[in-house]
Every structure is written in structure tokens, then in C-alpha cells.
């Protein structure tokens, strides 16, 4: 159980695929790809997506889905920016973002769990509502972060690594352990595996779903705040593909859309595979259109290798 859940055997193959990609790019661009400068940027660019994808992992393991993350992120960023502007307090702004994210997440959870509306529809609805809400708050114009935030948290480093990366990494580790080792995680798997069995087993399915969607929302809220710090603007138009990116990362990492199976470790790898591909091909100077084609093809191939190796191991 322990092994399975922390994902040692499950994520091995897809992890090897990622390692293979890194090695390949390092060989092809030895002086530019494997530099600490590039790798740090790479990690730093992926950090925020990681938060969204980690929350999405929980949601998808319950056999749900959350399309609203991008909208919630933007809404939270806007809330944070507004509150920071009004009060001048970065802390209050951060709290506002977290509360906003949590609120949207809980709304998702309540509608999914109590209303029994398909998660896809619920979160599609809240995607529109949160984005629309953010636009109403801003009038459609990007708000800017206070300079202290952008130049403070946004640029701060610890041991040479951006603080934002540390934050995201720490939270991801906690989420991975929570999923693998705690009762909360166990119930998450149980609901996705067989919701009726979970219910009959005495798992408080509805309350748990509310918590899971709430967690995803909270993480999106935090992501909004970090994104505001990193990029300095709220990015109202920038996050329309966040949901698909996060879902793809989760699925690449071996989590099943049908629930009951998956690890955060896999998701981490799933986040990095497209990011590394894109970065590598850009560094190699592949033209953008070709990049789209090649990234698509390599993505399919990577997951194929994973599936194929896993199968031959099993049988």
C-alpha cells in the first residue's frame, strides 16, 4: 500500500520518460539546456501550475473534474490586488485571495456533492462565473500588483531558488503525503474507486467532496496570489487553458479520469513533461508551429511508453 500510494512503482516509468527527455535535450543543447539558469527558470515557470495540478489530482481521484481553476485563480488574484490596493496590506490581500479561492471551491463541492450535478457542468459554470466576476471587479483591465509584492515575494530567493518555488514545492510535498498516508487521502481514493462502497463503508462522501473541491479552490486561490506576485498583473485573459493544462498533467502522471487511482508524485512529473518539451524545443530553436506538432507527438509517445512498460511489467 505504502509503496503503491507514494507511487514508487507507478511513477517509475513516466519518471524515466521525463529523465530521458532531460538527458536528450542536455545532449542536443549541452551548453544551454542543462544550465542551472535554465533549469531554475523551468522549475519556476512550472511552480504555479504545480499547485493547480496537485489540487486537481485530488479532484480527479474522486472521479471528478475541476474546470474552474483558471477562473478561480484570476478571481483570487483580482481580489488580492483590490484588497492590497485598498488596505495597503499584503497579508490582507493574500488572505482575501485564499478566502476567495476557498469559497469558489466550496461552492463547487456543494453543488457537486449535494446537487449531484456533473462536476464538469458545475465547474464550467463556476469558471464562467468567477471569470465574469473578476472582470466585473476590474472592468476588464488587468490590475497590477503592488510593487512591494512584485519585487518582494515575486523576486525573492532562498539558497538561489525563488521563494515561490519553495512554497509550491513544500505544499506539493504536503499534499503528496496527505494523499498517500492519511485518512483524508484514503477516503479520497475510496470515493473515486466506488462511491457507493465508500458511502456504505461510512465515509461521509458529501462532506469529503466539499473538502476536496474546497482544497482545489484554496490552492487556486494561493496560485492566484503567487501569480500576482510573480508576474505583477492579474492576467485576466491568461488562464483560460490552465484547467486543461492541469488536467493533462494529472493524467500524464498516471491518474485515471475514472477515479480511484493516482499520485501527486505522478502529477509532478506530468507537469514537467510538457514544460520540458516546450522549453527544450524552444532552446533548440524549433519553430513554434513545429513545436506544437512535436510536443503533441512526444506527449502521446511518452504516455505510451509509460502504459506499455507498466503493462509488460504487470503481465
Amino acid at each position: 500500500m505504502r509503496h503503491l500510494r507514494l507511487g514508487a512503482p507507478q511513477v517509475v516509468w513516466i519518471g524515466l520518460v521525463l529523465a530521458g527527455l532531460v538527458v536528450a535535450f542536455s545532449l542536443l543543447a549541452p551548453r544551454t539546456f542543462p544550465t542551472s539558469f535554465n533549469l531554475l527558470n523551468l522549475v519556476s515557470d512550472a511552480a504555479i501550475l504545480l499547485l493547480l495540478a496537485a489540487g486537481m489530482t485530488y479532484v480527479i481521484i474522486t472521479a471528478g473534474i475541476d474546470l474552474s481553476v483558471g477562473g478561480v485563480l484570476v478571481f483570487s488574484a483580482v481580489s488580492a490586488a483590490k484588497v492590497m490596493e485598498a488596505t495597503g496590506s499584503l497579508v490582507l490581500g493574500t488572505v482575501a485571495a485564499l478566502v476567495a479561492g476557498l469559497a469558489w471551491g466550496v461552492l463547487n463541492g456543494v453543488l457537486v456533492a449535494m446537487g449531484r450535478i456533473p462536476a464538469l457542468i458545475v465547474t464550467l459554470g463556476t469558471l464562467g462565473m468567477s471569470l465574469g466576476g473578476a472582470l466585473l471587479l476590474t472592468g476588464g483591465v488587468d490590475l497590477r500588483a503592488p510593487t512591494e509584492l512584485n519585487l518582494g515575494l515575486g523576486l525573492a530567493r532562498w539558497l538561489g531558488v525563488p521563494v515561490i518555488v519553495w512554497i509550491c514545492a513544500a505544499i506539493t510535498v504536503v499534499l503528496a503525503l496527505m494523499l498517500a498516508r492519511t485518512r483524508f487521502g484514503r477516503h479520497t481514493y475510496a470515493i473515486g474507486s466506488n462511491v457507493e462502497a465508500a458511502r456504505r463503508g461510512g465515509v461521509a462522501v458529501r462532506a469529503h467532496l466539499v473538502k476536496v473541491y474546497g482544497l482545489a479552490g484554496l490552492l487556486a486561490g494561493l496560485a492566484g496570489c503567487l501569480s500576482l506576485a510573480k508576474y505583477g498583473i492579474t492576467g485576466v485573459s491568461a488562464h483560460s487553458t490552465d484547467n486543461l493544462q492541469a488536467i493533462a498533467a494529472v493524467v500524464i502522471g498516471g491518474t485515471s479520469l475514472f477515479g480511484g487511482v493516482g499520485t501527486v508524485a505522478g502529477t509532478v512529473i506530468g507537469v514537467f513533461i510538457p514544460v520540458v518539451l516546450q522549453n527544450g524545443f524552444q532552446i533548440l530553436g524549433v519553430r513554434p508551429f513545429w513545436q506544437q506538432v512535436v510536443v503533441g507527438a512526444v506527449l502521446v509517445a511518452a504516455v505510451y511508453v509509460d502504459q506499455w512498460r507498466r503493462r509488460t511489467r504487470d503481465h
Partner: protein
Amino acid sequence: GGQGSEAGGGEQTRVTLVQGLAGEEFYETMACGAKAKAQELGVALDVQGPQKFDPTLQTPIVNSVTASAPDAMLIAPTDVKAMIAPLTQAKQQGIKIILVDTVVEDESIGLSRISTDNVKGGAAAAQALAEQIGGKGKVLVISTDPGVSTVDARIKGFEEEIKANHPDIAHLGVQYSHNDVGEASRIVNAALAKDPDLAGVFAANLNSATGAGSALRQAGKLGEVKMVGFDAGPAQVKQLKDGVVQALVAQLPGDIGAKGVEQAVAAVKGQQVTASIPTDATIVTEENVDEPEVEKILYRAGC
């Protein structure tokens, strides 16, 4: 790091163009202009660009480009503020930065700035539309997504111009098509249902104009409801010639690209660069589209 010197020592000069949006006619034309000039000057040109006009997507690209350490970077920054940090990083790596089309707030970034004024373009569009509809009636703006700064600037210019100089024009507001032709068509249909006396449409980008044109044609109102589009790619010119739009606001992307490469090479060679080169917007109509000096500025399909 010492990566910046990688391309030195007599090797060919390497220049990278980072577009604001990959696969858009404006930026593709810019790339074409840049490529032609690069070939002429014997420098290697590499083109990159994000899938959306957005700093959070452009930042990783700038970072990768910085990692690959070209001699110079031409970039259309997607945000005046958000792009400062990654560009500062690039500058610190010794990469010469030339800003094309758009700019950043930090004056110290960009040895040369060759910029398009989208606000002015929007104002030009307003004037053209006002002229088409005879200075009065209801007009509608169709945009892509809120928060895209170049498009927002066009709309800002448009609205300011209408408000300031065209009191008889009733501005119905902005609708967002999310860059979806079907959506744009639906918007215009609903607008026609609501305001059958709609006089004009400003379609702030190509897909908006396409969808709006389809709706007007279905309604049999093509030509009756005047439309002004932005940019002058082949598709737009065809729309102009087909009478779908009555006027286009053309910028000079090819020119910008070529000039950018010129400035970049000069900067790399340590020669004199021009700090600021403004470019203009031209109104293209059915009457002037075949004139040679106008034809010259139309965007080109691929290269």
C-alpha cells in the same frame, strides 16, 4: 553566467524574435519582414512566440531564449510591467534587446523601440467607421477577450475618439467573442435582433470580423451595416474586396520586423542605434487598396 559569449568569436550573429502571439498574421508578417532582412544582412534569425498574447505565457519563452543566449532579442512584450523582470534577466546575460510593436515601462530596457500605437489605430478606426456611417447611428465593438492589452488599447482609442468627436454616434459597448468566429457571429445576430438599425461594427481582430461578416451576410445586411476591421492580412483584404468590411486599419508589421533586425545587428556590432522609431497606421479602403503604396503595406501570407 558566461553563456552570453557562446555565440561570439566570429560566428554568425544570432537574433531571436519573440512574437506577442504565434500564428497571428500581424506577427507572422513581422517575422517575414525580419527574416528577409536577416537574410540580407547574413544573420541567423529564430522566431518564437506564445499561443496567447499573455505575459505568463511569454515569460517562459523569454527565459528559454535567454538560456539559449542569442546575440540579440527582438521582442513584442505582452505587458508593460510583467515583462520587465524576464527582460532584465536577459539584459543581464548580455543580450541586446530591441522592442518591437509594444513596449515596457522600464525605459532602460530596449536599446531601440519600434512601436505601433494601438490607441491611435483605434482612433483611426473610429474615424473610418464614422465616415462610413455618415457620422451617426449605433455602433458595436467586437473584441476577443478582455485583458489583451493591444486589443484593449485599440478599443480605448476607438471609444475616446467616438466620445470626443462624434456626438451623434451611439456606442453600444463591447462584446467579447473569445476569438471564436461562431461566437462573433452569434453576437452580431443577437445585436441585429435587438437593434435592427445597427449602423456600424468595429471588429477589433480578424476572427471577430469574420464571424460578424458571416452574420451580416446571412441577415442580408452586408454593406448596409458598415464594418471596420483591424490589420491588413490577406484574409482581411479579401473581406475588404468582398465588401464584408469597408475599411481596414493597417499597421506596418513587416517594416517593423525589418527595422528591428537592422537595429539589432547595429547594436551587436556596436554601431549607432535609433532609440525610438514610431510607426503609423494607415486606413485601407476599397478605393485605395490597389494603390501601390497601400499594396506595399498589406501583410503577406507566409514567406
